[in-house]
């Protein structure tokens, strides 16, 4: 049945080549496609010779498809984790960037032939190469991978079975550098990524045992199944004439296993009614309940990081404010510089520097780096609030306290500080709510907090609606009591 459909579409394409009478409206001359060029080699990456262009085997593939369809490929940059959402929105005709075939994807999209078979492989430090051969050897150990991937789901399963500790990254470079630095004990990722990482940063071993196999696919909007079928026809033709093998070979991702896979795939296409679906349909429909525990745990992490960072910010901010008011010229200068530098640079950059930039000198655990990064950043903002609040306490109050025989420190502790704190309370509450939400940034240094967990959940179920609402509710549950408490304290103090 499928084959017949393919044949029809192939004929349709042939017809497109020379304008026929059946043609009502010309198909657009471009094939818009989306992928992620950020660290996307060898799939999609910015061309070093011309950074305005992209290159990679997915680029060559999509150009081959566009050619076959009589169109010109036009690239749109989109973050890898958002490609599917962008396809669903209709931002472009096809998403292609090492996207992994899976049952949920097929339920929501028109998915192409699985054009490449990848192998999930473990990378370990040379010293561990004999001891660590499978996930079962990694009980209690930290294993890195990209978030929202098949490898991440494998690690979550291994967490249940073997007590492996999954560590999620947003890019495929830092898992390997962190492996070499000892922050993680293994990396589980696609062999394509692992082999490229090995060329870039030698020093680790890729274990030959295959942990799992998966397939890359191109993703089309659900209602564009016809376009998908046309593209499949082109893919099949290019597989048969060896073009695909040439492309893969030129990017160094062709091997015997791939050749075997292509032969089997073509055989399945040829067998009558062969629906090419490499995913198992056993994956149960994922319900809200299934994700509730992980969302709650992530909310606890968000709350924990925020509270710890805020405590640090309040203590340090108070010290900075006091130093800028009571300190000598040198202390004032240093503290002012700190505040200006920290306020004037993005907190995202500060987190990167703290976690990756300083890793040559001090290897901070991710959670500690997250608390430190947010705390040090917010301390600068808190110090400005306290400084202005301290300066807003009338001089007469301080003089009255001095005439009573209180020492400078007692004047600060008993009169100036408490009055300033009341003035600072409203802006502080505001900052704490902001911090609660800014804590979502720490996902860039591998901490899975509420927003990151929601993104993982949303990617898996293919919709942001329910996860988004749940996530928003959890943030509100965390922040509303805080605002209430602040209002009650203010009401009590402004008697």
């Amino acid at each position, binding site marked *: 049945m499928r084959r017949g459909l393919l044949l029809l579409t192939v004929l349709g394409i042939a017809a497109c080549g020379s304008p026929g009478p059946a043609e009502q409206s010309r198909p657009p001359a471009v094939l818009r496609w989306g992928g992620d060029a950020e660290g996307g080699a060898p799939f999609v990456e910015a061309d070093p010779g011309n950074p305005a262009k992209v290159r990679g085997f997915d680029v060559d593939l999509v150009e081959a498809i566009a050619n076959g369809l009589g169109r010109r490929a036009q690239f749109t940059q989109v973050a890898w984790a958002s490609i599917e959402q962008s396809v669903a929105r209709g931002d472009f005709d096809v998403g292609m960037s090492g996207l992994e075939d899976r049952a949920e994807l097929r339920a929501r999209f028109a998915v192409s032939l699985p054009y490449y078979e990848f192998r999930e492989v473990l990378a370990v430090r040379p010293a561990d190469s004999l001891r660590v051969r499978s996930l079962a050897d990694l009980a209690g150990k930290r294993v890195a991978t990209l978030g929202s991937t098949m490898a991440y789901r494998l690690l979550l399963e291994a967490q249940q079975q073997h007590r492996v500790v999954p560590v999620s990254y947003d890019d495929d470079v830092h898992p390997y550098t962190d492996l070499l630095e000892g922050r993680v004990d293994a990396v589980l990722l696609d062999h394509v990524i692992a082999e490229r990482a090995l060329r870039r940063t030698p020093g680790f071993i890729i274990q030959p045992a295959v942990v799992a196999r998966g397939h890359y696919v191109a993703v089309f909007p659900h209602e564009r199944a016809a376009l998908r079928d046309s593209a499949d026809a082109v893919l099949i033709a290019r597989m048969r004439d060896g073009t695909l093998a040439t492309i893969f070979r030129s990017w160094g991702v062709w091997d015997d296993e791939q050749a075997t896979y292509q032969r089997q795939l073509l055989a399945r296409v040829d067998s009558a009614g062969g629906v090419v679906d490499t995913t198992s349909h056993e994956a149960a429909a994922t319900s809200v309940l299934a994700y509730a525990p992980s969302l709650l745990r992530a909310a606890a992490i968000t709350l924990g990081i925020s509270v710890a960072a805020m405590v640090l910010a309040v203590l340090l901010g108070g010290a900075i404010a006091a130093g800028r008011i009571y300190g000598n010229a040198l202390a004032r200068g240093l503290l002012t510089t700190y505040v200006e530098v920290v306020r004037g640079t993005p907190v995202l950059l500060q987190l990167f520097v703290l976690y990756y930039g300083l890793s040559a000198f001090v290897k901070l655990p991710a959670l500690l780096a997250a608390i430190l990064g947010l705390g040090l950043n917010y301390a600068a903002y808190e110090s400005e609030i306290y400084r202005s609040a301290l300066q807003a306490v009338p001089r007469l109050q301080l003089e009255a306290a001095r005439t009573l025989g209180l020492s*400078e420190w007692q004047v600060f502790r008993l009169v100036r500080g408490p009055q300033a704190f009341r003035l600072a309370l409203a802006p502080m509450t505001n900052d704490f709510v902001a911090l609660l939400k800014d804590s979502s940034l720490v996902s860039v240094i591998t901490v899975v907090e509420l927003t990151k967990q929601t993104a993982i959940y949303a990617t898996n179920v293919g919709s942001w609606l329910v996860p988004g609402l749940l996530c928003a509710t959890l943030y509100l549950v965390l922040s509303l009591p805080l605002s209430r408490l602040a209002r009650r304290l203010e009401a009590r103090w402004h008697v």
Partner: protein
Amino acid sequence: MSDAAPVLQIDRLRLSRIDSGKPRDVLRDICLTLPAGRICALMGVSGAGKSTVLRAVVALEAFDHGMIVVDGVSLHAGPVPREALLRDFRGKVGMVFQQHALFPHLTVRENVTLALIHAAGVSTHQADQTAESLLQSLGVAHRSAAYPTQISGGEAQRVAIARALALDPPLLLMDEPTAALDPARRSALAETLRALAAAGRTLLITTHDIEFAKAAADEVAIMAHGEIVEQGPARRVLEAPAHEATRALLRHERE
């Protein structure tokens, strides 16, 4: 001069400030000596330097020349010493500010006990008792649990007096205590101050109010342009002024 050592002795106090580029004399050779139990009213038009004298005596304002001795503890010319060096001095002088300057985050009782607990190291229990009896004697004991924003201006003044007296200083300074009081309350205040003086306390008060000065003060010192121009028993100075500045003040206040 009485036989006993004076409680307050101000000796040739001089202070000048740079005012729009030129030095201006704020205080010129102020001399004032008060024995125990004496109430002195410092009078003069605004800007005469009355409040500056009070601020110098309570060690909030530096002076260029001269000396201040309170109950045997002296303050010298030069910058105001650090609080650590003023320990002995602070217990000697209480100050009631014109705006009272009560601590808004503390209750009436806590305003009074603050110095007792933290400066004098008295136990909380004992400080509470002292505060209660002080507030009682000033007629505001029923407000001891209230916050400063919840009480009237007259009550706030009495609380401020109680706070200034907490450490039992021999000298009490009051800056313009009648400024916000109606006539009935002024005479009540005069009575209160007389009672304090009768108990041996020395008071130095700045005021514009001639009737109040007559009712409350033993003696007055008239200031003009940073100088004390006339000084003597309150009734004599205010009923038979010798100096032109005193007459000008009397004319001004009657209008």
